[in-house]
């Protein structure tokens, strides 16, 4: 479902003397449907960078990132938009929403974009929020005022409200209590079971053990010239 | 006739210039033709546009009638009539049917006009779109492109505010399916008479320097909404002097107790009916006067 080959990336910092910083070289990995791949490596080794390149908000210097039929490394913006709409889900660590929009609509948003009728989208969003133990009285409020754990769960709900065939999970269980952690882990297991290809970053080792079929250490993709 | 004036006051070159504008107006019904309006020996607002058009149309054989709000005997009508008697030496009349040229302010005579007659309107503001669009460049562009949605906005505002189209005079018409035209401040009661009229209708705006025209038998449709159709309304009375039920009426307060009477605004029409023996509610004593 997701196949990366020969991928490299560098940053050019124009405002710091045009310094060119290579951050990745010859990255390659592959994830099949129903498989969960864990990215590991020390902090700063490029786990998040790789994930963002797959999501498309970081540009690849060379190589290819096939998600389904689309090569994210070369695709036109509107192809990536279409990919994100129906195929590729992403649970990031940050919640970015229009202020004032009720939580239930924030979660239903990806479904509305896909053309799901409003009532059905809200119903599916509500069911997921209930499952993630977000109190119903908060659903009509904007998540911007929520605690970190609550925001994290709203983000997860957004990522799981549509059954994306490919999922990127950036620390999905960070800042969650034991009960909610368990809910999230079972959601991820459910996604695997229905055949989603998942790439995740889990600092939570027990979660990593339980979910990941394989681990890839991104340190191996670090350019040697960087030193 | 005082020989020190050129015929009909204006010099021949000026009349030629105005005639060219009139001909262009007749050729493009409803289109406002700019012209170099002259200073006239009367203030703006007293009919300088109409007077110039009349001056350009008059020939020595003409018989001129001048009305103001339908009346031949008001100050403005009398002054303009005298002006042309003095400067052109033409014959004058109060009878609509006898006149070859009729200059009017705010009315169309009740007696149907005929082929060969010319009706000249005095126009204060020729631009029907001015109410909502102050820029002349833009209104000209809107006419050019037939961009007339704004006209209906004005009527919409009327209904929204008053429950009906409250525009009672100056009611805009669409001419020959093309230009939206301001018929000058005639009551909307007169609007149907604009359309398919056998006479030539000329409109002169002196201060705004515009001439426009309706050639004989030109179509002129009053704008409206499907569910608020145009109606040519008038006071729901009969003339108290001549008993006419179909003519436009003026309301006259007759004492401090609120008594009132309704009389035809067209004095020639009213007199004609009374002479023919029609008698209204209060007309007995004056009949045959």
């Amino acid at each position, binding site marked *: 479902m997701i196949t990366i080959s020969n991928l490299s990336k560098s940053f050019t910092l*124009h*405002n710091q003397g045009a310094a060119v910083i290579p951050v990745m070289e010859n990255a390659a990995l592959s994830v099949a449907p129903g498989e969960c791949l864990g990215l590991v490596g020390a902090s700063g080794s490029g786990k998040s960078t790789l994930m963002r390149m797959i999501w498309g908000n970081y540009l690849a210097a060379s190589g290819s990132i096939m998600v389904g039929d689309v090569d994210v490394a*070369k695709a036109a913006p509107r192809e990536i938009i279409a990919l994100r709409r129906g195929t590729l889900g992403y649970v990031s660590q940050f919640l970015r929403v*229009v202020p004032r929009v009720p939580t239930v609509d924030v979660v239903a948003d990806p479904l509305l974009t896909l053309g799901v009728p409003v009532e059905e989208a809200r119903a599916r969003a509500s069911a997921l929020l209930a499952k993630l133990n977000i109190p119903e009285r908060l659903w009509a409020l904007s998540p911007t005022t929520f605690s970190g754990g609550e925001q994290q769960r709203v983000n997860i709900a957004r990522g799981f409200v549509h059954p994306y065939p490919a999922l990127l999970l950036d620390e999905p269980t960070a800042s969650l209590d034991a009960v909610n952690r368990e809910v999230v882990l079972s959601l991820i297991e459910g996604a695997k079971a229905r055949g989603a290809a998942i790439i995740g970053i889990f600092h939570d080792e027990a979660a990593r053990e339980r979910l990941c079929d394989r681990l890839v250490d991104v340190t191996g993709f670090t350019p040697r010239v960087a030193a | 006739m005082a020989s020190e004036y050129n015929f009909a006051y204006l010099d021949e070159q000026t009349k030629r210039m105005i005639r060219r504008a009139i001909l262009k107006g007749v050729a493009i019904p409803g289109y406002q033709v700019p012209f170099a309006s002259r200073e006239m020996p009367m203030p703006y607002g007293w009919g300088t546009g109409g007077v110039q058009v009349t001056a350009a149309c008059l020939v020595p054989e003409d018989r001129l009638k001048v009305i103001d709000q339908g009346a031949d005997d008001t100050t403005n009508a009398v002054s303009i009539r005298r002006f042309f008697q003095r400067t052109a030496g033409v014959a004058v009349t109060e009878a609509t049917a006898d006149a070859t040229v009729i200059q009017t302010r705010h009315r169309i005579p009740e007696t149907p006009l005929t082929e060969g007659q010319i009706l000249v309107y005095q126009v204060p503001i020729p631009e029907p779109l001015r109410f909502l669009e102050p820029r002349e460049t833009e209104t000209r562009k809107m006419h050019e492109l037939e961009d007339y949605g704004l006209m209906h906005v004005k009527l919409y505002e009327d209904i*929204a505010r008053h429950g009906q189209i409250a525009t009672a005079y100056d009611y805009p018409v669409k001419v020959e399916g093309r230009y939206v035209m301001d018929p000058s401040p005639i009551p909307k009661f007169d609007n149907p008479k604009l359309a398919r009229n056998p006479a030539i209708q000329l409109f002169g705006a002196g201060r705004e320097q515009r001439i426009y025209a309706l050639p004989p038998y030109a179509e002129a449709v009053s704008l409206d909404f*499907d569910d608020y159709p145009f109606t040519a309304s008038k006071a729901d009375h009969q003339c108290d002097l001549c008993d006419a039920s179909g003519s436009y009426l003026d309301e006259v307060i007759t004492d401090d107790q609120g008594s009132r009477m309704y009389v035809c605004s067209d004095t020639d029409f009213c007199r004609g009916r009374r002479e023919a023996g029609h008698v209204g509610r209060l007309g007995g004593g004056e009949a045959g006067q």
Partner: protein
Amino acid sequence: MKDLDIWTSMKTQPLLSVQGLSKFYGARIGCDAVSFDLYPGEVLGIVGESGSGKSTLLSCLAGHLAPDTGKVIFDTVDGPRDTVVMGEAERRRLARTDWAYVHQNPRDGLRMGVSAGGNVGERLMAVGARHYGDIRAQAVDWLGRVEIAADRIDDRPSAFSGGMQQRLQIARNLVTGPRLVFMDEPTGGLDVSVQARLLDLLRGLVREMGLSAIIVTHDLAVVRLLADRLMVMKGGYVVEQGLTDQVLDDPQHEYTQLLVSSVLQV
């Protein structure tokens, strides 16, 4: 080859195709050599500092300014047409049917002397609506969609707050169901809470009506939330364009990097 399949399976006809557009003010560059395609349902953000040419570009696209070179091809009901060379009458017809233009200052986009209902109804009347009751019903519906109470329909915009005026301007523009909306700093001049409400409204309308939109702004937070794609302009040139979050998160051009690093967290 697989790429080709995707291209043909998606709506391949751009709604708007801009090719080599330039506008000069004497020797000074307004905008130069701008090219891009906009597809149905896409929202394109254009950012840049004052004088970068973004407003000039928008004016050329919307037909308010005549460009010196280039084409602006719009997919009309009769097929793609270059709006630069079409007659003014036809362009104005587009402007009141398929296009909408939301000005930064609502006073520029509203008739301040006309009631809210008349403002919303004008475009309907301009395209031939002649039934007062229907026009009014549509105006009430649209006021509701932009969260203006129906009992304000006969009030003039001068009695409205800035945020309400801007929402009224949006209703007035969208009532005829346009396909392409030009917006010039639509949330500029509004305080932050009002901006948020407007952003949410715009997002909903874009999605429900399948609108395409071109939004000129200097507010990166606004484009992050509204725009699918982003174009960065400087000195009349497009220096960078791409997916909105890609341009903001991984800017390639020197100027974009400066722009992104100069603002607070967006």
